[in-house]
Each structure stands twice: as structure tokens, then as C-alpha cells.
């Protein structure tokens, strides 16, 4: 039986940031970390870069290789936690190790959704969320002649895989159930710009449709084609399923911890059970834009929650203010950033939807698009395509709920900067750090 003051389940973004926060407060308290992945902590978003040969395997590390030593972490890697007993404050690992803890963090992240369909077990069908996935895909491409691939799901992960495959000279067809790609984070105009650019690099985007069956080709047991809803058939040697990620809550559920769509937490990121905290993709925390609890599965949120949970486990008392969905992604050579509520159509609440205002600048020929969504003179959402520099100024205005009435005519200008902001706010931004401006 191992006894530890702090136990963290997970070895990714939320877990690592929690380790660092705990160590800022408590240099010496014993700290164990368990992950069912057999690797040193790596950056999950980089796996598509790795697949596309843009980074080497060593460059996937999220922290230097001395991370565990530096932070006095006893890491159990490649071992899964199979059960959690909240009353005894104990977990059991697959290899029958028992670990007793004082404080626990569930940083179990998410797992890829695999919809049921005939042919899903054929060789050449993959999900794409872990390094193991990336390695399997890489190996499959190297050993079988993959010329054409189908990617199911035109969201962020699907498109990042697409880019990697294109870099490997594979022709990709994206199949998207909604009427456009990136429908969860973009509006119609931005989706169209990216769709056009993807076509420009040789990809096909089929929207409003889905794969109902994967068929094997001549080779025994290997993918040969997919069949769509309308019975049309697309030849391919590989299928990547990227239809989404869901919070990994099985452990928490069996232990009787309260769940919504993710693990429920209070503002200190504590679960329904004393001394047990949760952070990252596994969690359903308050979403500042949707104004309700919601899983927001992005890296900055996982990092922030990990930090705050870590502080609080070590005796601090920090409040998690809430999540703002956001992403930055460059697709087909076009950099894009989206923050918050980018399309009023995404809101179910009709009154709120009608109260929103939009200002935008669309230069179609140059594929430049800037859009700002306002609610009561406060920015609640932004889309930037091609002109993304200094985007964080908008994010700051969203976070701080700054009234933009007096400078809104400057918001879309290409030289928009701090000088356009009211002097008081400008001061506040830097004085917050003890510096005058």
C-alpha cells in the first residue's frame, strides 16, 4: 500500500498544471500521479503535428524530461486506476497497487466518441486523440498504401488530422453531419472561407451527410470504402473518426461522485465529495458565455483549472471564475481565432439572441474576416480570419466585461490597440501588475 498526501489521476495538461501549483505552496508533501498512458507528459494537440511530420516524437513533451524529479512526483505511468473508494480515500490500480490519499485530483480528461456502425472494427479505422492513436495511424500509413482517406467529422480535430494527412500526400474527404464544417465554433462566413481553402489544397468537404457503413476492400479485413446516408460510396483505404470527445467519468460515476455531462465541481473545483477535486476536459464547470455549467474541452481551460485545483488541494483558496470557449487554429495556411459566442444562431434563448449586435469587416477577396458580437455594449464573441494579431486584447475585453460603447468604432480597425481603449482601463490593465502606464 502506497500512502500519499496528494494523488493525481491523469498526466496531461490539467494534471501537470496541478502539480506545479501544489509545488508552489507545498514543496515537500508526497505526490503521486497515475496515468494509463505509458508516456512522459506530452502535448495532446501536437499529435497531429507529429502525424504530419512537423515535429519529432521528442518534441511532443509538454514539460522537460526532469519534470517529475524536479517536482518530486512519484509517477505510475502505463497503469490504470480501476476503482476509487471515496470513504476509504483509496484507489486501486490495474496491477493491484493500492494508493491511499489525503487529497485527490481527477484529471481524467476525455475519450473519443466512436459511433456504432457496421465495419467500425475493420483495420484502418481509427479515432485520433492519443499518442497511441497517432502512432497506430502513422504505422498503418507506412505499411499500407494509403492514397485516400475519409475523415468523419469536420470539427477542429478532424480538420487538424486532415492537414496532417494532406502533408503526407493523402487525398482526404471530410464528411460532416452539419451543413458546414467547424459549425460549433465558427459562423457561416468563416466556415466558408476555410472550406474554400481546404478545397484549394485538394480536400473534398461533404456536408449534411454521414457515413452509415464502412466496407472492406479486396484485402481481407481492411477498409476499402465508406457508404454515405444517400447510398453513395467513397473509395478509401483509411477512415478517421473525429466526431467528438466526451468527459471520462467512469471512475467518478462508480465512486458515487455527482455528474452532469462531466464531473460536477464547485467554484473551488471541488467535487461533491470532500477532498476530491476535478479539472480539465473531464469537468463540467461554469461557462461564462453560455451562462451555465458546460464542459469546455480546450487546453487553456484544462491548464487554468488544473492550477486552481492544485492550489486549493494544497490549502489555497482560489476561485475558478468560469470558462470561455476559444480556439486558435491555422488551417490550409489561414490563421483563425475564435473566442466566445461567435454566432447568435448558437443560442437557444431567443430573447438573448435578439439582443445581440454584430459588427464586422469582411474582405472577401483577401479572405480577411473580423467579426465582433456585442451584448449590452460588451463583447461576447470574436472571429478573426487571417488578421489575428493582438487578438488577446479582445479576449481581455470579453473576460473583464468592459463597456465598449465609447470606442466601438475603433474595434475593427487594423491598428486597434491599447491606445484606442479608455485611459482608465489601459491603466488598470498594467496597474493590475503593479505598473503605471
Amino acid at each position, binding site marked *: 500500500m502506497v500512502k500519499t498526501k496528494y494523488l493525481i489521476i491523469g498526466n496531461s495538461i490539467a494534471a501537470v498544471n496541478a502539480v506545479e501549483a501544489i509545488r508552489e505552496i507545498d514543496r515537500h508533501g508526497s505526490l503521486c500521479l497515475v496515468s494509463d498512458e505509458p508516456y512522459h507528459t506530452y502535448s495532446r494537440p501536437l499529435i497531429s503535428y507529429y502525424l504530419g511530420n512537423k515535429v519529432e516524437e521528442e518534441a511532443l513533451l509538454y514539460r522537460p524530461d526532469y519534470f517529475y524529479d524536479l517536482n518530486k512526483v512519484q509517477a505510475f505511468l502505463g497503469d490504470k486506476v480501476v476503482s476509487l473508494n471515496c470513504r476509504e480515500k483509496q484507489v486501486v490500480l490495474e496491477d493491484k497497487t493500492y494508493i491511499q490519499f489525503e487529497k485527490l485530483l481527477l484529471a481524467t480528461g476525455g475519450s473519443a466518441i466512436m459511433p456504432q456502425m457496421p465495419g467500425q472494427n475493420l483495420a484502418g479505422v481509427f479515432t485520433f486523440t492519443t499518442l497511441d492513436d497517432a502512432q497506430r495511424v502513422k504505422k498503418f500509413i507506412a505499411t499500407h498504401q494509403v492514397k485516400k482517406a475519409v475523415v468523419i467529422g469536420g470539427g477542429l480535430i478532424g480538420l487538424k488530422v486532415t492537414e496532417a494527412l494532406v502533408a503526407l500526400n493523402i487525398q482526404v474527404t471530410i464528411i460532416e453531419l452539419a451543413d458546414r464544417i467547424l459549425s460549433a465554433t465558427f459562423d457561416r462566413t468563416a466556415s466558408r472561407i476555410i472550406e474554400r481553402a481546404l478545397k484549394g489544397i485538394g480536400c473534398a468537404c461533404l456536408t449534411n451527410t454521414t457515413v452509415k457503413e464502412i466496407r472492406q476492400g479486396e484485402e481481407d479485413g481492411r477498409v476499402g470504402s465508406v457508404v454515405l446516408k444517400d447510398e453513395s460510396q467513397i473509395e478509401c483505404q483509411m477512415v478517421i473518426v473525429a466526431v467528438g470527445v466526451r468527459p471520462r467519468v467512469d471512475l467518478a460515476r462508480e465512486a458515487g461522485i455527482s455528474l452532469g455531462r462531466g464531473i460536477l465541481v464547485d467554484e473551488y473545483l471541488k467535487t461533491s465529495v470532500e477532498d476530491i477535486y476535478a479539472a480539465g476536459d473531464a469537468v463540467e464547470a461554469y461557462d461564462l458565455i453560455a451562462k451555465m455549467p458546460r464542459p469546455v474541452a480546450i487546453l*487553456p481551460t484544462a491548464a487554468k483549472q488544473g492550477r486552481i485545483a492544485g492550489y486549493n488541494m494544497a490549502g489555497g483558496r482560489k476561485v475558478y471564475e468560469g470558462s470561455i470557449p476559444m480556439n*486558435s487554429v*491555422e488551417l490550409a495556411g489561414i490563421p483563425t481565432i475564435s473566442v466566445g459566442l461567435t454566432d447568435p444562431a448558437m443560442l437557444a434563448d431567443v430573447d438573448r439572441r435578439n439582443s445581440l449586435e454584430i459588427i464586422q469587416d469582411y474582405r472577401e477577396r483577401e479572405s480577411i474576416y473580423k467579426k465582433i458580437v456585442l451584448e449590452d455594449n460588451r463583447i461576447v464573441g470574436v472571429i478573426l480570419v487571417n488578421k489575428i*494579431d493582438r487578438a*488577446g486584447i479582445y479576449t481581455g475585453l470579453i473576460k473583464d466585461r468592459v463597456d465598449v460603447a465609447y470606442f466601438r468604432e475603433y474595434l475593427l480597425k487594423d491598428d486597434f490597440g*491599447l491606445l484606442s481603449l479608455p485611459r482608465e482601463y489601459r491603466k488598470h490593465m*498594467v496597474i493590475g*501588475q503593479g*505598473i503605471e502606464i
Partner: protein
Amino acid sequence: MKRIVIHEEYCMGCRLCEIHCLVQHSKSKQIIKAYKGEFPKPLPRVLVEEQGYLSFALQCRHCEDAPCLEACMTGSLHRDAETGAVICHEDKCVGCWMCIMVCPLGVIARRREGKKAASKCDLCAGEKIPVCVQHCPNEAITFEER
């Protein structure tokens, strides 16, 4: 930690800070080569904003609760244990621009020539006083313990 303090009322908008910053972060450390002969062309990590008579020089504040550190997906942004400065390990950076999305001051630049990488103030690691401060003729930026 020692920080760069901005005094906007003294800034004349001469942009000498930008020039010295660019040269400091070039390979040759020579102004003509830095501007004319280097690939990728170095970028200044200080930005002079100017509108009419108003101007000031702005660079990374090395925030205590730095949002860029939380958003960096590769771990290339990190805090220097000794100086407290927020530093970008450019070799490790992949140019995903997550940091640009969250920096509330907009002081991270995109290096797009050659290998993509985020370019930001490192307080001139190795120098006692950052070169922008050293060369500002009117003390519109100063280096102080705050």
C-alpha cells in the same frame, strides 16, 4: 522582480526602442545586417503605439497570473526561475498562436519567416538593463523593482 515601467507622458514616439530591440534579438547584432541581411528577419519585441500626440512603448508585462503560460500548448512559454520573466523557447514553439489569442496586451508577435514561432520580450536575458530602456532618450520606459 524587476520590471519595465511605462511612462506614456514622456514617450515621443521616436521608436528607438523598437530598433534597439530588433538589433539585440538579431543574429549579427549589427543594425544594417539585422534589417537588411538576416533570414528570418528579426522582429522587435517592443511595440510603440501611436495616435496623434499620444504614444507609448509597450512590451510583455511578465504577468503574475500569465494567461499565455496557461494557453501555450507545447510548453515553450515558461517562467524563468531566476528572473521571473516569461520566456518563449522558440525552438519548441510550433506557431499555434494560442498565446496571441489570450495575451490581453497584444504583445506577442508572429514570426512567419522560416520556422514559425512566437516572438516576445525576454527582458533581454543576459543584459542588466533591457536595451529598450537603455536607449530611450527621455526615460519613457524605466527598469524598476516592482
